[in-house]
C-alpha cells in the first residue's frame, strides 16, 4: 500500500512539474512573439575626424562588433565612420582598433564592412539614409531598407553640445532635425520600434525633442554634463574609448543570442560612480514596458527557423557540356591582343571630331551687341543688301 501511495504521490508531483514546465514554455514562446518585429537593422555612426578622436571610432566599432556577434548580418548594418583609424599612418598596430590598453580585444576585427567612410559621413547623407531618400544609383549596402516590422538600433557618437551633434568639425545636426527625421520615418512606416543611443557630451539634449511613437532613447550624460573618456594608452598615444560605451561593451559581451536580459538592465549600465556623468534615458514614447523588452530585440536579430522532420533528397546537378557554336568552321581568323603603345598610330592620330555646341555666354552676347548696333545704325530696310 505504501508503494501505491508513493506511486500516486510521484505521479502527482510529475504532473505538477509537467504543467509547470508547460506554463513556463508557453510564456517563453509567448514572449518570443510579443515584440512584433520581423527583422533588425542597425545604423551606427561615428561623426568625428582626426586621430585624437580615435575613441569615437572605437566606440562605434565596439557596438558594431556586438551587434554582429548577436546576429545582425552586414547587409542589415549601415556603418558610417568619419575617419580611418585602423590604417592611419599614426597607428602603431595597423588594421587594429583596440578598446582597452591591454590590447586584448581588437574591435576592428577581420571581417568588417564600412558603408560610409571619410567625407561621405555628412548630416545630409545621415538624414538621407534614415528617411530613405537616396539617389537611385546608391548601392544596396548603403541603404536602410527597413519596413514597418523592423526594429532599428541607432547609435551616434562624437562631439556634441546642448541640442546639437557635430559632424566632422564642419557641420552639425540639431535635435529638432533628428526628431523630424524620426517623424518622417514613422509616417513612412520605416520602423516598428527604434532604440536611440548617443554617447556625446550633453547627450540627453538630443532626445529631448522626440515626438514620434515607439522611440526609446539612451544617452551617456545629462544636459550640462560632459561625457568622459575611459583611459589613455601611452603606446598608441590617444584615449581609446569613452566611459559609457566601454561599460556598455562590457555589458554586451555578457549577452548572447538567447539571453533574457532586458532594457532595465541596460539603463543600469554605467552608474554615476563609474561614468562620472549621469546616463539618462527616455521611455515615455515607447508603448511596451521596458522591463519586457529584451536586449536582443534591438541588438540581436530575428532568425526564421523552420524545423522539418522529413529527409530531403538533393539531386546532384550534372551540367551538359556547353556546345560552342560552330567548332572552327565559322571563325577561322584568330583574335589578337591590342597593341599597347602603337607609336606610329598615335603620331598620325587625327584629332577627334568634337561635337558642335552652339556658342554660349560671352560670345553670344558680343554678337548680339554687334548685330544690335548694326541694325540700329543702318535700319532694317538695308537688310536686303545683305540677303
Amino acid at each position, binding site marked *: 500500500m505504501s508503494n501505491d501511495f508513493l506511486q500516486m504521490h510521484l505521479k502527482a508531483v510529475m504532473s505538477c512539474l509537467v504543467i509547470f514546465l508547460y506554463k513556463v514554455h508557453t510564456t517563453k514562446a509567448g514572449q518570443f512573439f510579443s515584440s512584433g518585429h520581423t527583422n533588425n537593422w542597425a545604423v551606427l555612426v561615428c561623426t568625428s575626424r582626426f586621430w585624437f578622436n580615435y575613441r569615437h571610432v572605437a566606440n562605434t566599432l565596439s557596438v558594431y562588433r556586438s551587434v554582429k556577434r548577436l546576429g545582425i548580418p552586414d547587409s542589415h548594418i549601415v556603418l558610417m565612420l568619419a575617419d580611418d583609424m585602423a590604417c592611419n599612418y599614426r597607428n602603431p598596430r595597423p*588594421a587594429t582598433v583596440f578598446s582597452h590598453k591591454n590590447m586584448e580585444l581588437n574591435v576592428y576585427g*577581420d*571581417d*568588417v564592412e564600412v558603408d560610409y567612410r571619410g567625407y561621405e559621413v555628412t548630416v545630409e547623407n545621415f538624414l538621407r539614409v534614415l528617411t530613405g531618400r537616396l539617389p537611385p*544609383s546608391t548601392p544596396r549596402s548603403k541603404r536602410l531598407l527597413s519596413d514597418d516590422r523592423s526594429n532599428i538600433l541607432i547609435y551616434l557618437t562624437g562631439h556634441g553640445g546642448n541640442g546639437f551633434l557635430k559632424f*566632422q568639425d564642419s557641420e552639425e545636426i540639431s535635435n529638432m532635425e533628428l526628431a523630424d527625421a524620426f517623424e518622417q520615418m514613422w509616417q513612412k512606416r520605416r520602423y516598428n520600434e527604434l532604440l536611440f543611443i548617443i554617447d556625446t557630451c550633453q547627450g540627453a539634449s538630443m532626445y529631448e525633442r522626440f515626438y514620434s511613437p515607439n522611440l526609446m532613447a539612451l544617452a551617456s550624460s545629462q544636459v550640462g554634463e560632459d561625457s568622459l573618456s575611459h583611459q589613455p594608452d601611452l603606446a598608441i598615444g590617444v584615449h581609446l574609448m569613452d566611459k559609457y560605451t566601454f561599460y556598455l561593451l562590457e555589458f554586451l559581451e555578457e549577452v548572447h543570442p538567447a539571453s533574457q536580459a532586458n532594457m532595465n538592465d541596460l539603463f543600469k549600465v554605467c552608474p554615476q560612480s563609474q561614468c562620472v556623468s549621469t546616463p539618462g534615458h527616455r521611455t515615455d514614447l515607447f508603448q511596451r514596458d521596458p522591463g519586457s523588452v529584451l536586449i536582443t530585440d534591438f541588438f540581436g536579430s530575428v532568425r526564421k527557423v523552420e524545423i522539418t522532420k522529413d529527409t530531403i533528397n538533393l539531386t546532384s546537378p550534372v551540367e551538359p557540356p556547353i556546345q560552342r557554336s560552330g567548332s572552327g568552321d565559322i571563325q577561322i581568323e*584568330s*583574335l589578337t591582343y591590342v597593341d599597347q*603603345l602603337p607609336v606610329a598610330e598615335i603620331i598620325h*592620330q587625327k584629332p577627334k571630331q568634337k561635337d558642335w555646341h552652339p556658342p554660349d555666354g560671352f560670345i553670344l552676347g558680343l554678337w548680339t551687341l554687334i548685330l544690335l548696333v548694326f541694325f540700329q545704325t543702318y535700319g532694317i530696310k538695308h537688310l536686303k543688301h545683305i540677303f
Partner: protein
Amino acid sequence: GLVFLSSEFGVDQFQEELVIRPLHSGDIYASFQFRTLWDTDFLQERQKVSHYRLFPKSLGQVLSKFSVRELHISFTQGFWRTMQWGQPFIPSPPGAELWVWFHDTVSDVDGNWKELTNVLSGIFCASLNFIDLTNTVQPSASFKPLGLGNATDHRFLRYATLPREIVCTENLTPWKKLLPCGSKAGLSVLLKSEKLFHSSFHSQAVHIRPVCQDEQCTSKAWELRQTLNVVFDLYTSGQGKKEWSLFKMFSRTLTEACPLATSSKVYVDITDNPELSPATPLLSQAVVLGDRRTYSVFDLTRAETFGQLRSLNLLLRWKGDSGGMLRPLLHAERYVAGFGLQTGEIHTVIYNNHPYRAFPVLLMDSVPWYLQLYIHTLTVTSKSRDNKPSYIHYQPAKDRHRPHLLEMLIQLPPHSMTEVTVQFERALLKWTEYTPDPNHGFYVGSSVVSALVPSMVAMNTNFTQDQPLFSSFVPVKEESSYFVRVYTEPLLVNLPTPDFSMPYNVICLTCTVVAVGYGSFYNLLTRTFQVDEPSLPLAKRLANLIRRIRGVPLLA
C-alpha cells in the same frame, strides 16, 4: 576528394599563384594572383546569364548591366619605390584607380560610368562615388585595352583616380569574398589584414578583360584576375634580419590548395641564390620585365609538397652580399616647385637608364581644375636641350566640370633625364567646396608613363596555357621590348584656405553694428521728447494740494 566536373566541361577555371621575390634592399615582395577564366560571351549571344559558378555573381551582373568590355580597379596603400625595388609585376598608383573600356554599343557612356562607380563603391566598400566628371578623363592614347580586340575608339574609355582613398580591412573583406574559395582554403588563407597592412606597400586589384580561350585563340573567354601585391619591410616586420619565412610574413602557413583550383603554385625567385628550405627539385625560368629569372616551384595540388607536417612554411635566408640589382630602365618622379599660395610649378622628371637605346614614352597627366595650368609655359628638356614631343593632346579644364588632361609622346635619349615643367596658379574655391580638413591639402593624381622599353633578354611571345600568371598579364607582341607602366608620386598641394569662422564673425559684427548704430539712429529720429515733471517730496505735494484747493499757483 571531390569529383570535379568543371575541368572536363571547361566552363569555369580557377588558378592561383603566389610569387615571392626577395628584393635587393632586404625587403620581400609577395605577389598573389587569382585568375578565374569564364567561358561565356554574354555580350555576343545576348543571353541572360543566370548560372554563376566560380565567377562572382556581383561582378558578372555589373559587366552585363553596364556593357563593360574591360574593368581595372586597384586600391593601393603606399608608394612603389622603383629605384630600390625594381619594377612590380602589376603597377598601381597610390589611392584608388579605376579605368573602364565600355562596349561600343553603349550610347550614354557618362551615365553608365556614373552608375558603375556607385555600384563598385557598394561592392568594395570604398568611396568611389566621389568619382564624377570633375576627376574623370578620357585619355586619347594611353590605357589601350589589355584584352582582345581590334578597334579602339577612345570615346569608350574612362579613367579616374582618387589619390586620397584609404585601403583597409573593409576593402580587403569584400575582395576576399570574390574568390571561389573565399579565405578558407588555398593561398588566400595567408591574407590576414593585420600583417598585410603592416607593410611598406599594399595593393589589391581586380582586372577583368576578354582573353583567348585557348592557344589557337579563335574564341573569347572572360578573365578575372585578382591581384594582391605586398612588400614587407625589413625593419618593421623582419626585425632587421635578412631571413624570411611564410609564417613571419603572413603569420600563417599553407596547408592545402584550393579544391576548386586547377593549378595552385608558389614561385620563389632564387636567381640571387638565397638559401631556401624546404628544397624542391622543380625549377622554372621565366622572362618577365626584360629579365630572365629562375624560380623554385612548389605545386600545392600535390600532397608531397606539404611533407610530414601537412603544412608548408618556406624559409628564405640571404647568404652574404647578393651583388648588384638590375637597374630599372625607366623611372619617373614628380614634385611641386615654387613658394606661396598663389603660383607653383609642376616638375615631372623621367629617367632613361638604358646605356645606348632611345625609346618613346607616353606621359599622361591629369590635373584637377583648381590648379590652373598655363600651357604656354610647358617645357620639355632632355640633357638641357629642348625636346619637342611628337604628339601632344591637351584638353583644358573647365571650372567645376572637367580636369586638365595632358598627353605627350616624348622620345627619351639614351642614358638621360628628361624634365617636363608647367606653371600653374591656384584657384580660390567656394566656401562649400572645401573638405572638412582643408589644411591637409588637396591631392593631384599620379602621372602615368607608358613605354615599350627595349629588352636585354628576348621576351616570350608564345602563349601557353601553363604559363605562370605573373608573366602573362601584359600581352607580349614582340621579343625585343616589353610594355611597362610607371606611376609617379601624387602631389599634395595647399590651396589658399579661408578662415571658416569668418561667416560667424561677420554675422556677429554686422548684427551688432546694425543694432547699435541703426537702432540708436532710428530712435533719435523718431522719438518725441516730453518734459517730465519731477516727482516732488511729500511735504511739497501736500502743500500743492492745499494750494490747489485755495486756487493759488502751484509750487515747481
